[in-house]
């Protein structure tokens, strides 16, 4: 036991010696939280648009004023031909255009029907869709205003409630994702590199011939990263609560326990990688390239999983972070209890057991 403590102390020295890496370990979550919280939003705002007002009558001006008063759009008015609109699109200075026909107001009042055209730059399809929806809503609103003047129509007013996120806090979705990502880096990459480094430097042989049990070498390697990860978790949670105002609705102890389970899963993965590689570069490329992208993509925090083709959805199931993400979302954001996440917990437990068994089986006491 005393031996183990000495070894763990040695590993901590190693970790603390490399200040720059340590700085990045704690800097990365901070920067990511700030960026996700303040800079990145999936909302659509400040969209530059061109309004080709070929009518220039009272009705068209009323409609334009209505569009201008919403903060989604920054409008620019011009009587423009299609070629001019196209060149504006090509310059990238506008994202959509609204074309009002000549005699817009006349048509509307006398024939009761007028046509307008929305042209959206669909090279960015999601923004285009949202823009069209916004503009359609604004125009529909204007139309209803006209209706009110004529005859009272029926009105169904949808009262919308945003569940779990009343203020529309855009960073909510990202917090669990960032946590999962950080664990993947800290646990998997650093653990694998730290074991392989001993191999590369030749110090592994010294460790193996010592009376210390080889398995304990691995345990002492894993402990510092477990501690670092838990510290990181506390940091990320504190940042999201105090900076991003994300409320932790569920039981924090349950959240901590589930996180520890996921950390152990990542550590086992790191050990497994270190058993199969012999150079730091290979270990790094494997855990960075091999693990990072799947974690980013298949966790479901950036892109909805159900949109992916079936084979990729199957692959997503073997990524541990995907299950952890579901757990955090349920416990932290929705405030649900263990009864809702036992299935995911069981899957993570199974994965950990499997990875750890393979890692320990493959751990060689002799170097080639």
């Amino acid at each position: 036991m005393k031996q183990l403590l000495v070894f763990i102390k040695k590993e901590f020295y190693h970790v603390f010696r490399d200040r720059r890496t340590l700085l990045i370990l704690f800097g990365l979550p901070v920067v990511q939280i700030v960026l996700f919280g303040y800079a990145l939003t999936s909302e659509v705002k400040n969209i530059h648009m061109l309004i080709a007002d070929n009518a220039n009558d009272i009705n068209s001006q009323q409609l334009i004023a209505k569009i201008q008063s919403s903060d989604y759009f920054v409008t620019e008015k011009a009587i423009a031909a299609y070629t001019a609109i196209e060149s504006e699109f090509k310059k990238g200075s506008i994202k959509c255009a609204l074309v009002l026909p000549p005699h817009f107001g006349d048509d509307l009042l006398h024939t009761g029907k007028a046509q307008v055209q929305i042209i959206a730059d669909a090279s960015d399809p999601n923004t285009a869709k949202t823009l069209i929806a916004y503009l359609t809503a604004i125009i529909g609103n204007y139309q209803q205003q006209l209706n009110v003047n004529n005859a009272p129509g029926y009105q169904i007013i949808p009262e919308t409630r945003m569940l779990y996120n009343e203020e529309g806090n855009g960073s909510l979705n990202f917090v669990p994702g960032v946590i999962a990502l950080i664990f993947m880096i800290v646990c998997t990459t650093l653990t694998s590199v730290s074991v392989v480094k001993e191999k590369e430097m030749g110090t592994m042989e010294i460790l193996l011939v010592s009376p210390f049990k080889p398995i304990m070498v691995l345990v002492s390697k894993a402990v510092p990263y477990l501690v670092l990860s838990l510290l990181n978790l506390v940091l990320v949670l504190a940042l999201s609560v105090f900076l991003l105002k994300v409320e932790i609705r569920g039981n924090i102890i349950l959240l901590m326990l589930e996180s520890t389970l996921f950390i152990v899963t990542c550590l086992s993965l790191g050990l497994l990688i270190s058993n199969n590689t012999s150079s730091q570069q290979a270990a790094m490329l494997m855990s960075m390239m091999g693990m990072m992208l799947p974690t980013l993509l298949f966790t479901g925090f950036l892109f909805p999983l159900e949109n992916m083709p079936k084979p990729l959805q199957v692959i997503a199931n073997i990524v541990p972070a995907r299950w952890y993400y579901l757990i955090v979302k349920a416990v932290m954001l929705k405030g649900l209890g263990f009864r809702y996440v036992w299935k995911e917990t069981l899957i993570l437990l199974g994965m950990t057991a499997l990875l750890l068994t393979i890692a320990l089986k493959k751990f060689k006491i002799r170097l080639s």
Partner: protein
Amino acid sequence: MKVLLFILQKEFRQIFRDKTILVMMLAVPTIQLIIMPLAANFDVKSVNIVFTDHDHSTYSQKLISKIGASGYFKMISVEASYKEALAFIEKNKADIILEIPAGFERNLVREGRQQLNVSIDAINGTKATIGGSYLQSIIADFNNNIDVNTKTVPGTAPVIDITSSNWFNIRAEYKFYMVPGILVLLLTMIGGFLTALNIVREKEIGTIEQINVTPIKKWQFILGKMIPFWVVGMIVFTIGLIIAFVVYGIVPKGSLLVLYPFAGCYLIAVLGFGLLISTYSNTQVQAMFIAFFFIMIFILMSGLFTSTDSMPYWARIMSNLTPVTHFIKVVRMIVLKGSGFADVKTELLYIALFAVGLNGWAIWNYRKTN
């Protein structure tokens, strides 16, 4: 000049000797470019909806079937109470609950006004916004329809007919937007990571001291490191364009003669960035982590996944200060919209400035005596 040729020979040999690195450089981007756009799909195709209908009237049925027929929503179930419907959201089986209150039809006919309760799982912002606005426009449409059906004097209400067209990407496919962006991302990672690792490796092994004592000049050494990776980068870029054509059927609408000079200039900037990192780090782990840190920020700020227009002012400035932003913008403009040189010349200026700035800084910071 002759010295430079020798160094180049050495570097190319080292690259071709290490088969794993070669595979990492060529095969990995290829696979990623094929898989990632399939996975990176923001397209909100179907929003899962649960109804609770307390009214059971003709109108409520009409509204439900109208929503079901719109194609945007997948009807999961009709539940008797809000609580049962909420269970679907808790289990991630549904995204939206539409609750039709009792007396919906009666109030609508008598008073002309009626409220509906819509509850949206707002954890996923994109889905919530898009699903919510779909639902709103369907309900607005429903309003207009009952007007037509029951109005005593039909046809007096003015109607604005809206036609919308999607330019440059008629079917509004998300992968067209993603492929050029991901190509830029891969180019950045290859350029940034590999140069950074390569020079630090010489430091770690100690061979850099041997080079330092030779009469090789600073610029010769740096050019010798950069040219091979520049060539590799251009090859990867070409392979990427071919994959975009073969797998996704994307043909650049603009001229390749505009695209390639941009790519060349951008690669110089990225290589300079890798070089800069290598001058500041002592071990490969450090170099990798510093590179990872910055590339992560670059990716998030570049507008690859989220639009830069919606960012707050300070973030837009930051976004403008990252080279990736400009190149992604340019590649998307040229490939998808067919923009010409005149449309993108300011961006070229930006990228050129980055190239000069980053390389200058790196060369200034690289000292032969250490």
